[in-house]
């Protein structure tokens, strides 16, 4: 999570910039604020298990972050927590649980130009045992030509075409951070 936070803080302005042509210029700020709370909470509470960690992340995202990203990332971590609590321990299953939870909350499908368009290929790649930084980046890039059907970007219709989805990019940061943490 610390790595994810670092990346979010580093790329905060870029996330906001992505949220400008097709959104409302706050995605960087939403994520950065949220992750600051998360990291603070982890620091003070020093969770000693993955379960405890996921609980802290979920609670902080749901209570401190609004916008679309708060409940979506909140749901994602809650879904991951539930899957883990049900006894699954592979990242593939856990992330799959997160993905399902996001979809339950946000009703977005693959191709709607949302973070789903990164989560879904990532889960798929894990199934095929091939998650790499390239897979993640390609998924992000692939949101560019899409016309948004969900989220704030959908209001601009045709004019959303040609821009990367900010939520897809922040999700990519999460997965890059995971890969990096694993490699360590």
């Amino acid at each position: 999570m610390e790595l994810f936070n670092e990346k979010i803080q580093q790329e905060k302005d870029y996330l906001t910039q992505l949220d400008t042509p097709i959104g409302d210029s706050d995605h960087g700020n939403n994520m950065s604020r949220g992750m600051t709370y998360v990291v603070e909470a982890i620091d003070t509470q020093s969770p000693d298990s993955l379960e405890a960690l996921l609980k802290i992340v979920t609670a902080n995202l749901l209570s401190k972050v609004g916008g679309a990203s708060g409940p979506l990332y909140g749901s994602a971590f809650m879904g991951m927590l539930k899957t883990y609590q049900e006894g699954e321990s592979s990242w593939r299953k856990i992330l799959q649980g997160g993905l399902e939870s996001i979809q339950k909350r946000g009703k977005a499908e693959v191709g709607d130009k949302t973070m789903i368009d990164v989560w879904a290929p990532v889960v798929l790649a894990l199934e095929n045992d091939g998650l790499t930084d390239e897979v993640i980046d390609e998924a992000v890039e692939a949101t560019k030509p899409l016309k948004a059907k969900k989220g704030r970007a959908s209001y601009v219709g045709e004019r959303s075409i040609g821009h990367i989805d900010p939520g897809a990019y922040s999700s990519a940061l999460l997965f890059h951070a995971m890969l990096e943490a694993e490699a360590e």
Partner: protein
Amino acid sequence: MKKIINKVEDIVIEMCEGMVKAHPEQLSFNKKYKLITRKELNKNKVSLISGGGSGHEPAHGGFVGKGMLDVAVCGDVFASPSTIQVYNAITKTESNKGTLLIIKNYSGDCMNFDGAAEMAEDDDIKVEKVYVNDDVAVKDSLYTIGRRGVAGTVFVHKIAGAAAEKGHELLKVKTAAEKAIQNVRSIGFAFTSCTVPAKGSPTFTLGDDEMEFGVGIHGEPGIAREKIVSADELAEKMLNRIIVDLPYESGDDIALMVNGFGSTPLQELYLLNNSVNKILENKNINVYKTFVGNYMTAIDMSGASISLMKLDEELKELLDYPSDAPAFKV
């Protein structure tokens, strides 16, 4: 960025406190969950909750008062409040008649308010929800999430607020709110962008002779970037989009709102109201009541929106019902 601020992080809290301090007899502020609440809550009326991102002042705190809202939940600038904030708004104002959430139709708002409603229902609180989607600048389609909620939301607050204040049951208040939603349509334009404080620079840039037609209240792009036109032509362009949409027809009675986006002076809003009135008169659409001012702003955006709500006898009565909300005294 030239703004009257201390620290960017403190804007929402300080602004809310400034609003509540201006109306200490009526409003109170819960700092933890950023709730602006009516001081005198009535357990025997439906609780009305709205809110959303901050930056739309006087929305939504200014609409808290007798005859309108019970709580406004204040998110960060342009970011919906969190699920837990909304959940706390619901539990802290629980009434014997249940709670109605008035939600502007944005993904973030919907998800957080919906999530909070689910949590509250788990606590056995009766919660109903309505979604305002009055912006005709957005194409409505089955495949998308539909239209944005903009200034027409204020009319929904007013109508639902009156119905609740009269003691109606939850479903009746919800039905009144939905009738308002079905009958209200809006469109806006911008002459300049807003500047989100945390970003510090304008969201978009326009040429000296350009406007963004159909802009959203968060500075979201609209229908097209166009050359600016005279007030009369602008009013015509806007009304053309609105009128066919419902449609509003000759002989209809309507409520009219000419809403400023934050930095457009009243001088221009009144002038626009004059242009709008001339056109409506020509079309034999009868303005029953007019509201000109800053009601649903986009921080410091320059521009305005027009909203029309078609009225029947019930809506007229509810519109005329007294309200002492600071920003909407009737």
